[in-house]
């Protein structure tokens, strides 16, 4: 099999060095504006419309979204966009219209804090543990290692450790402010450089006429010949974002409910265009390198299309995609550990300064453990990724139910739906995914069904009750 051949030069190293240095400098500069823990953890709830657009768009797009879409297009053609991207984005319109403004309106900074107020502390603790696993971004660390090794020839773990180190460094400085402002720059890099690759590739494959001659006819079928059950799976998987803690953090940090809503709607417009470009790049990669595997063909095509220094810059754009996601989730994980586990369990009267210090400490821990798990203890890797997946199946109904359910509402409802989602995922996985259905597709309905009778058990919750301040 033909492998990726890269002429990696000193100029490309220079591009990478400049990019990483600029990220650290921005993180440090922004940190000088941070005055208290609300600034550090929620950017003072002052994020403007363009800031929210940039940070939400950059955070949601990780290695999976970029390489995943291109790879699906490589294998299945335009169906990657028609059946995977379009339904997923249309399904997120309600998230923008109703969930984003509602989340901006609540006082809580994190999903576990919200679960704690709506239900009970044990529900919040369970959610917090799962969110920490979900935030470890092990697949992103693995991807960055593989990409770095493919391009530079250096060992995976060295590349992974350097990138995680830089991400932690700039995120630690100013918390959410640093993460958001580096996201703004990374958003520019990832969109401009990744997208500007297409015109060159497009002319070298001869547009759609050239593609039709080079690719199988099935690549131009809107559904790609996929069965209806598979299409349904794609549609439902798009709903994962409804429980995404990083999106909730950004909704909460927006300067108004209207900003949160409009920014997310704008992101949908951008994502749809970005996905189209990724689909076209995937088709181009298939036409140019049919003998390679999807992601490798995509990488080879991009690198071969660029001169020295621009190759380095293009790799920076892919790093921007991955690092913007990593930084956001490391901060979410560290905030969850500090504010939702340590603070309520051991130090209810923690000061602002202590909160910031502890969050920084946990960011280092999450990054360090992430590198160890990703490159040294691969046996544990799958378990942590699985636990992260468990979070989505178990938190979706309790979180949205807590925000929108208008009828009788009890702690048992939250508990049962969370445990139901989690238990079903575990059992379904243990049974080896019967009928070829993903665990989440079974767990979500079960979680919702249990939420309904659960709300008939026990004392109704007073939603307007003020949270108890344990320091008083």
């Amino acid at each position, binding site marked *: 099999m033909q492998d990726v051949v890269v002429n990696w030069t000193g100029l490309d190293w220079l591009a990478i060095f400049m990019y990483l240095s600029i990220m650290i400098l921005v993180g440090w500069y*922004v940190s000088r*504006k941070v005055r208290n823990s609300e600034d550090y953890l929620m950017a003072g709830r*002052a994020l*403007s*419309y*363009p*800031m929210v*657009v*940039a940070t939400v768009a950059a955070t949601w797009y990780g290695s999976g979204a970029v390489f995943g879409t291109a790879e699906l297009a490589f294998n299945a053609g*335009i169906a990657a*966009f*028609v059946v995977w991207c*379009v339904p997923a*984005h*249309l399904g997120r*319109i309600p998230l923008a*219209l109703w969930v984003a403004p509602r989340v901006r309106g609540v006082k809580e900074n994190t999903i576990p804090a919200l679960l704690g107020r709506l239900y009970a502390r044990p529900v919040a603790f369970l959610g917090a543990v799962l969110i920490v696993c979900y935030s470890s971004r092990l697949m992103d660390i693995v991807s960055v290692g593989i990409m770095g090794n493919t391009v530079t020839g250096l060992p995976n773990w060295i590349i992974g450790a350097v990138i995680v180190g830089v991400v932690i460094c700039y995120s630690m400085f100013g918390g959410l402010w640093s993460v958001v*402002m580096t996201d*703004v*720059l990374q*958003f*520019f890099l990832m*969109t*401009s450089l990744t*997208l*500007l*690759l*297409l*015109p060159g590739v*497009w002319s070298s494959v001869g*547009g*759609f*006429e050239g593609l*039709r001659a080079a690719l199988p006819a099935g690549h*131009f079928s*809107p559904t790609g010949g996929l069965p209806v059950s598979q299409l349904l799976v794609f549609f439902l998987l798009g709903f994962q974002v409804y429980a995404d803690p990083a999106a909730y953090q950004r909704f909460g940090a927006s300067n108004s409910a*209207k900003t949160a*809503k*409009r920014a997310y*709607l*704008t992101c*949908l*417009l*951008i994502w*749809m*265009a*970005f996905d*189209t*470009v990724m*689909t*076209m790049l995937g088709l181009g990669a298939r036409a140019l390198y049919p003998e390679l595997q999807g992601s490798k063909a995509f990488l080879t095509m991009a690198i071969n299309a660029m001169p020295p220094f621009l190759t380095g810059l293009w790799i920076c754009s892919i790093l921007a995609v991955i690092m913007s996601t990593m930084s956001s989730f490391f901060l979410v994980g560290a905030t969850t550990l500090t504010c939702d586990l340590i603070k309520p369990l051991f130090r209810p009267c923690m000061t602002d300064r202590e909160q910031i210090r502890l969050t920084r400490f946990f960011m280092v821990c999450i990054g360090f453990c992430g590198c160890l798990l990703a490159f040294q203890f691969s046996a544990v890797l799958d378990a942590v990724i699985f636990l992260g997946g468990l979070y989505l199946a178990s938190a979706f109904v309790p979180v949205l139910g807590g925000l929108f359910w208008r009828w009788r509402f009890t702690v048992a409802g939250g508990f049962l739906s969370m445990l139901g989602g989690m238990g079903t995922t575990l059992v379904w996985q243990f049974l080896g995914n019967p009928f070829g259905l993903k665990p989440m597709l079974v767990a979500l309905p079960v979680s919702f069904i249990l939420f309904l009778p659960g709300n008939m058990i026990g004392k109704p919750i007073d939603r307007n009750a003020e949270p108890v301040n344990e320091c008083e």
Partner: protein
Amino acid sequence: MDQSLSTDIKFVVAIILEAVVLVWGLVGGVSLLGYILPVLVAIVCTTITVLGIRDFFRQHR
């Protein structure tokens, strides 16, 4: 009609329209899409970046 609601409706219509145009472009094999779309998105994203940086400096003057 409430102005906020009418803006929301415009956004939703724009999203649906964009989806229809892009699907039509891919299914119909409109090659021009490969040249125009990346440039358009790059312009929009660069504008958002510049506005984001401007807002940060305005807020922290």
